[in-house]
């Protein structure tokens, strides 16, 4: 009887992705412009000089479509080639848990995960001053 909760089958649920950093990272907010630069390997270091390492899931997965569209502006194949060419700056993990594990233990790492995979081991980084639950957040949608 609880089907009242969710009865539209086959519809696409809006995704909410969170950008996460290690607990020692003091950066709590990144502009969308800077984030795009980081994901495109145009910005390679944090203000304190630490190298930035991006960690994400397989770009061809459905979970990463928002990232491809809003941060890379590439097709999955283009993104895969790009990542292959920038292995020192961008890593691919096989699960959100793996992303969190890596980010939580790697100074300077910046991960992207589904909001519902968030743990206390990492910090959520705002984008343009917004958290994933707020209106107008960049990495939310279908």
């Amino acid at each position, binding site marked *: *009887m*609880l*089907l*009242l*909760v*969710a*009865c*539209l*089958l*086959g*519809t*696409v*649920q*809006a995704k909410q992705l969170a950008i996460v950093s290690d607990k020692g990272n003091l950066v709590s907010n990144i502009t969308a412009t800077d984030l795009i630069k980081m994901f495109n390997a145009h910005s390679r270091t944090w203000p304190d000089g630490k190298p930035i390492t991006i960690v994400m899931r397989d770009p061809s997965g459905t979970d990463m479509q928002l990232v491809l569209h809003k941060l890379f502006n590439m097709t999955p194949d283009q993104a895969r080639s790009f990542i292959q060419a920038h292995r020192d700056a961008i890593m691919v993990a096989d699960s959100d848990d793996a992303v969190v594990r890596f980010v939580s233990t790697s100074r300077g790492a910046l991960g992207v995960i*589904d*909001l*519902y*995979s*968030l*743990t*206390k081991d990492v910090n*959520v980084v705002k984008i343009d001053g917004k*958290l*994933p*639950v*707020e*209106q107008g957040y960049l990495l*939310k*949608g*279908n």
Partner: protein
Amino acid sequence: MQNISRNMLRIATALGAMVALAMIATAQETVSQQPNAQTAVFPLTTKSPEARRLVEEALTLYLDRVEQAQAIEILRKAVQVDPDFAMGHEVLAQISLDSAEQVGEQAKAFATRQHASAAEQTIIEWYQDAGDHKLISAITKMNEVLSQYPRDKWVVWMTTWWLQNQAQYERVIAVYEHSGITDSPGLINNIGYNYAYTRQFDKAFAMMDRYVAALPDDANPQDSYAEILRLAGRFNQSIEHYRAALAINPDFYSSQFGIADTYSLMGDQARARQEYEVGFRKFPLPELQRILWRTREAASYVREGDYEGANRAFQAIADYAHARDNSQAEADTYRQMAEYQQDPKQALIFLGRAEAATQEGKNTMKIAISQELAQILRARVEIAVKMSNKEIADSSLERLTGMSDSSNDKLIELAYHGAAGTVLFSEKKYDQAISHLEEDVNNPFSLKLLQTAYLKIGYTAGAKRTNDTLANLNDPTLEQALIVPAFRKCLDTPSCNGNTKSASLKK
């Protein structure tokens, strides 16, 4: 069926969360901060072995036997035996079918949490955060407990249930599959629904076969099978399984109402109402369940275009809720009355009554009142747009925007997106409307607009997908009643929007 949630009345927006907990051994024990995740068993902390035994019994009844009313009675005894049993209060808060009890028990759980272990405290705070619109904190705490007890049946149940109510079906499936648990009938049932929600019906039916095999003498596996068959549009088979459930247990009332709901979806409203009345005569029902099925019965009048009959039936529900001091149910009933009114001015009057009920706020969690108010504002926007009353539409949307901006609540946000999409659609700003409507794909009103908006911008694949979704929506709610039957009729009408012909109705 699955057990009913505390917020079940908010139809497609229900956010109720059920709790299930496990138990172990000695009194006043404290859980290790870092249990072995492979074997860790979630603790229940109480000074009374009897209270623990009662909670264990209630949990088994609730989860695996779906005997919610019995479980509630036993939990009440447990917290009487040990009033400081924080998790006992929390479980009762989550599974109670009485709104005042839900509020009171949540407060007691939070107030007594210092008597509980760290893990129990985290769970209580997780639910408190969820209730206080602190979604990020709630998620973090949920995952903290899950990481400590990924194979504990009760923690897996709590997590998957909460995620399900957040519409995170794929994550539910991932958590379950990672748990390696294969011997819990309650979890098998739950995951079967989640496969169905993600339209993986083959897997859903396989789960139901396992569920039936695990509990061949129980009614609920047949009831769940029936519900999932109905979701898939297999109505006759669904009724057969509901009848099989009643044959096993003639007192399994949800199957009686399931039959009624199914006839209603099939378009036989007279038969549906006969079946509802059989249920009401035969079974004493908890308050929230009575309201739920009275609402379904009232919606049957809407399905056949008898708006006077619907008004009488819905008004009786509103009066009942008012007499029981259940402000949220009263408000929700008036909101639904507004939705089917043919005269927009009358609709606004009902919305006024709905908002007045939310202001009374009796026996209702703060979050439930906020969510209901958001639904009311969304309905007001839709009605104002129909009336071409830009002033009301804009002012209501502004209030809703403010609520959405200031809360981390998913349901309020969905209401905002539905309302914003409606306004933008009316202004022919289809691209912008789509970006909002796509966020609200659990609502038939939004889906209908989305389908047209896709057509307007030439995105035929999106329109086709949306058509399919609408055509195959088998959900016995008022919103479905107002949108889907007319949409299906359109499929068979040559003069109707040609593109909807591309939708395939699965039978």
